[in-house]
């Protein structure tokens, strides 16, 4: 499907959310920004997003939980999820990849250009049209 899908960004830090949104918009995507895991979940239930970017640590509902819920929902179970995290070596990467089926993980501090490149890469994988 060629219609540029919207992206959901769940990031509690406004400055970071801002710069991510700026870069993605600059790359041609439409983005929806939520600063709270719960709000993001509401949106995810309501709308089909092409990709969801989530911060692992957020108020309301953290990134892990959000991921799990998204994976449980039939409609969003295959949506690519990019996790942004402040955890470095201490993170359980295997669990994120296997259990939550996170598509990619980016550790802070990351480069916005890299993020955009990853998003583009993940989006170019043809998603199952439902």
């Amino acid at each position, binding site marked *: 499907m060629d219609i540029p899908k919207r992206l959901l960004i769940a990031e*509690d*830090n*406004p*400055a*970071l959310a*801002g*710069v*991510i949104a*700026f*870069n993605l918009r*600059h790359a041609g995507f439409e983005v929806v920004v939520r*600063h709270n895991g719960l709000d993001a979940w509401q949106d995810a239930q309501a709308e089909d997003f092409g990709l969801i970017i989530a911060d692992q*640590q957020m*108020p*309301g509902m953290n990134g892990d939980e959000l991921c799990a819920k998204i994976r449980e929902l039939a409609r969003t179970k295959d949506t690519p999820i990019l996790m942004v995290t*402040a*955890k*470095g070596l*201490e993170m359980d990467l295997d669990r994120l990849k296997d259990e939550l089926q996170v598509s990619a993980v980016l550790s*802070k*501090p*990351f*480069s*916005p*250009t890299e993020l955009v490149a990853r998003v583009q890469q993940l989006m170019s994988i043809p998603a199952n049209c439902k």
Partner: protein
Amino acid sequence: MFKNEPQVELTRRVTGYHAMFLLLAVAWLLAGALYIVGSIFNARTESKCLIQLGRASASFGIEYVRGGPDSLQPLVQRIRAEESLAYCAVVDANSTVIAHSSPEHIGQTWVEPTGYEEAWQDVRRIRFTDDNSRRIRDYRIRLRAGHEDVGHVHVAVAEPSIGSVAIATAGYSHLLLLGPLALVVGGSYVLRGIVNPVNEIEKQLKNTARLPTSVAPDLQPVELQGLAGLGWNRLVAALAVAHSTTDRPINSDQSQQLSCVLESLPEGVAVTTLDGAILFANPAVAAILRVEEPTILYGRSIETVLSEYWPLGIDHPLLSQESVRRIVVSELDNPDDQSIAALRVARTPIRGDESGFVWSIRDISQQKLAEKSRTQFVDTATHELRTPLTNIKAYAETLAIADVTDPEQQKEFLNTITSEATRLARFIDDLLSVSSMEVGTLTINRKETDLGRMLSEVIDKVRPQIEQKQLVLETSLPPKFPKSSLDKDKLAAALVNILGNAVKYTPAAGHIAFRVNLDESHLTIEIEDTGVGISQEELSHVFDKFFRSNDPRVQSETGTGLGLSLAREIVRLHEGDLQLRSEIDKGTTVTIRMPR
């Protein structure tokens, strides 16, 4: 003989019996001897004499009639010789000797010997000692010839000498000797019967006494003779039983002590068989496993008991039968139920005989909680450090690479970088302070401070924000300030933080009061605002590290969540206290009180 009578003491019995037998033997001997001697002597002598006397009298009477007095002499001689008499004599009615075994006395006047005289019937006996010191018995009887008394007949015997007695008794000697001998021998057997078992017991006791104290006594039963022997054998049997049931003698004092120690341990200790059946558990185990008494657990499988609250899979290392010799340590918890304690369980084989396991069970809930809060601290800290850093990097890169043509936007981005950098710096400061607070190394350096100046500096610091938000600041300060000894930097920082909070969280056109009061002993600072306030649920958490209210009005402002806890600690180090009162949507009041 030994059954029911009260027993006299052994020594007395032995000597008693011994003496008795001896005396009996002696008495027997004496009695025998005396009897023999006496009776023989008497019997033979007496009757013999009397018979002689009778015969003599009779035959003399006949002869007298036949031949007259002179015919008696040959008879007298003959009788004397036959019967071994001392003498024999016939005396006529005029006391003239008409016949005598010693003929020279014929015609003489008979003189009655003087001695001990006894008479019975028609016999008179006189016992006297003659000139040769022989003891003589003279028997006299009337001589009748026809119907006439014509005189007396005397028959005398000498009492036998010791020699003759001895010869006479020789025939009875066997009886005399055998009797006492038999008594002595028989008596000694009886004595032996009494003494032997006691002797044997005494021997064993002496041997035991000679053994070194580390060696157990080796006692044997004795031949069953008497009550003492019976008692001894019972004792030996009882000792044998006691030895067979305990491998090592237990010092009862020590085992009592050990028992007390186990009862008092806060750590759970249990003993099971190799199959896991509980043999022993101390009260701490009962408490952890939520049973009233340790004895309830005895006999039950430890796997079953644990699995009630801490489900153990079949493969659980604590239940492994393969690594029986190794120590297995495991942490158990129930993540689904917070009320169930976290346990550290260790299983060790019992040293020595490896007949079972010793289990150590410790409640580590507190430890786990501490670990959890530390993990949370680290998580939050890393997040708070990395986020501003990410922003700085992201914005800088965006500015460099992307086409940010709009100068306003450029400015905005650069400002963001700056503010994020500041935020990061402040957070690092706070973090370091909190770290030293945690470790206990946060200290204050009291120096003489101009309190008035410090307070006005604090106010000056927040004045720009106050003016920007058009807040009303009401100050109430005492006219004069004494010199105080305080840590100016830290206290000022704490006040700036609190005042800063008041400014941050009070919407525009709000009101802030800054009141300082001094009495003789204390300094009181009160900061009251008409800001967003804190909800009742969050009130108890405001001093938690990194805590930031979920209220969006608070979230929209920057904050580390460390300020209040730091401020409180600083005040505490000044020997004061910090109190906070608040009502949601109404405002917050922070009161600091410390000795001046």
